[in-house]
């Protein structure tokens, strides 16, 4: 079942997202995405990890062409996605869907559950009337809701239930590719666990190819086959999940892993504390963006010589660091 990857991104660059859609937190410039490349093989899950402002959401949206990238290449099942327009692009959308982070704003409050799920079916002329109703019922049971929920409205549902509706809405189109943009981050921990289990089941059952965006590394470890870590718009490390968690090579990845709180009072984690971004100062022009905060910068000027490229360090691991630790 292998062969060409389903999704292939190369040199993706998004300078600044449309300003009117930006709701900034005030301390970071709008996320630029710079020279991002990765591939996702069919049936696998790639996690895109990073803290706020690193560009992971921007990357996902640019990939789906919900915002327009400035340059780069995006291939979906071999087709050049960036060359498509209008109707052709719209039809491609059927195959690549997204579930958003906030269950409270991602559903139109005026549409019933059934209407929201059926809308995609109608837009792509996949099913109508009775057939649509049947499809809606089927996908609702897939996400562990009941058929009767089709008549309910979002405000009657809990966060977890809404998120299931959002998933159902995406799955109704039978997509091959699913982007989960922090899809469990806004959920309670018990709900999160259940929804993650649901994802695993659905992914396996439907053979989905998934791009999983998150900032919680523990969650990522549960679902991802591959992981790419982003920092300030660039990928700094990319490896199989197993490799990344057992032998992270980039200092940022290491700091990130050490920062995750451990729910076990007996364990005293060895923490790498990074200086605050505002305190460390802006990254040097043309140098490694992580340099100001790096706990082990190189002694010579190698870190300032240029953006470290994502280099292959073996075992299918790539690191963007001159020291290649």
């Amino acid at each position, binding site marked *: 079942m292998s062969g060409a990857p389903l999704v292939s991104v190369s040199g993706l660059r998004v300078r600044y997202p449309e300003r009117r859609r930006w709701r900034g937190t005030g301390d970071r410039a709008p996320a630029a995405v710079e020279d991002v490349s990765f591939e996702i093989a069919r049936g696998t899950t790639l996690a895109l990890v990073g*803290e706020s402002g690193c560009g992971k959401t921007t990357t996902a949206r640019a990939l789906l062409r919900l915002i327009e990238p400035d340059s780069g290449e995006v291939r979906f099942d071999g087709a050049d996605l960036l060359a498509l327009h209008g109707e052709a692009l719209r039809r491609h959308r059927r195959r690549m869907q997204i579930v958003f982070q906030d269950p409270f704003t991602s559903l139109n409050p005026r549409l019933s559950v059934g209407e929201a799920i059926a809308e995609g079916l109608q837009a792509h002329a996949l099913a109508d009337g009775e057939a649509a109703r049947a499809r809606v019922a089927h996908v609702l049971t897939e996400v562990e809701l009941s058929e009767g929920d089709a008549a309910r409205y979002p405000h009657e549902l809990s966060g977890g239930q809404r998120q299931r509706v959002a998933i159902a809405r995406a799955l109704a189109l039978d997509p091959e590719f699913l982007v989960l943009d922090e899809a469990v981050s806004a959920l309670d921990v*018990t709900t999160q*666990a259940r929804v993650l289990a649901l994802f695993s089941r659905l992914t396996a059952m439907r053979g989905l190819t998934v791009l999983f965006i998150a900032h919680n590394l523990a969650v990522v470890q549960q679902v991802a086959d591959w992981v790419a870590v982003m920092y300030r718009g660039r990928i700094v490390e990319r490896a199989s999940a197993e490799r990344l968690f057992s032998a992270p090579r980039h200092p940022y990845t290491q700091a990130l892993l050490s*920062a995750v709180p*451990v729910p076990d009072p007996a364990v005293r984690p060895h923490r790498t504390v990074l200086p*605050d971004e505002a305190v460390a100062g802006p990254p040097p022009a043309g140098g490694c963006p992580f340099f100001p905060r790096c706990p082990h910068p190189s002694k010579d000027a190698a870190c300032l010589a240029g953006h470290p490229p994502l280099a292959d360090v073996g075992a299918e691991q790539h690191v963007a660091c001159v020291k290649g630790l």
Partner: protein
Amino acid sequence: MNAVLDVRNLDVTYAGGHRAVHDVSFAMAPGEMVGLVGESGSGKSTLGLAVMRLLGTRARIAISSRVSLEGRELLDLDEREMCAVRGRLMSMVFQEPAAALNPVMRVGDQIAEVVRLHGERSRGAALERAIAMMERAGVPQPGRRAFAYPHELSGGLRQRVMIAMALVLQPAVIIADEPTSALDVTVQAQILELLLQLQRESGTAVLLITHDLGIVAEACSRALVMRAGALVEAAPVDQLFRAPAHPYTAELLRAVPRIRKSA
């Protein structure tokens, strides 16, 4: 125990009829860091606001409830007396520093305002104390940063400012409502460290409200678990994690994602 904060039968009902806190009782010893854990809708934030008497007319606290701070019954106080308590004897740190700080006032002035509200006459002296506290809170170049507006600071720095504001008068109790939830995980770690350090130095008792069991495991000595308004378990942290008594606690522990360090 000689409790610094003693809450008995706290019962809070919102104006629409929703009973957010059901008959909750607990006590905090001086200098203790207690974690209050719960998911959304558990009533944990309401509890924090109720203890600070910040709910106003939105909610009603039952007559039978008791909240005593250093022996003094808070629910008997009128608003003016309560204002004298807030900031001085008991203060609060919120989740979203951007929302809790006044956007049009310099941060140094905001901290100084707290100092002046509780007796300090001199503006200069108040600002000095504010800057000193900012330094203790780990804000680099506090003399310069005191003149910054909140939006000019990063999330981590804003939270440090909020903590400085809460601690400047060395209150006996601090209620921290999800103080790190809005922060990146690398910054989160720093802020927790800071809270722990300052708390040890000044002997302030801290009620750390959070949904993150990892934070509780790391920072707290005791934990309270809330669910749907009721307190379902209260235990020392070691015991809670090792042998949870209530099934809900066990469910929470099972649901928390953990990183497995594979070989």
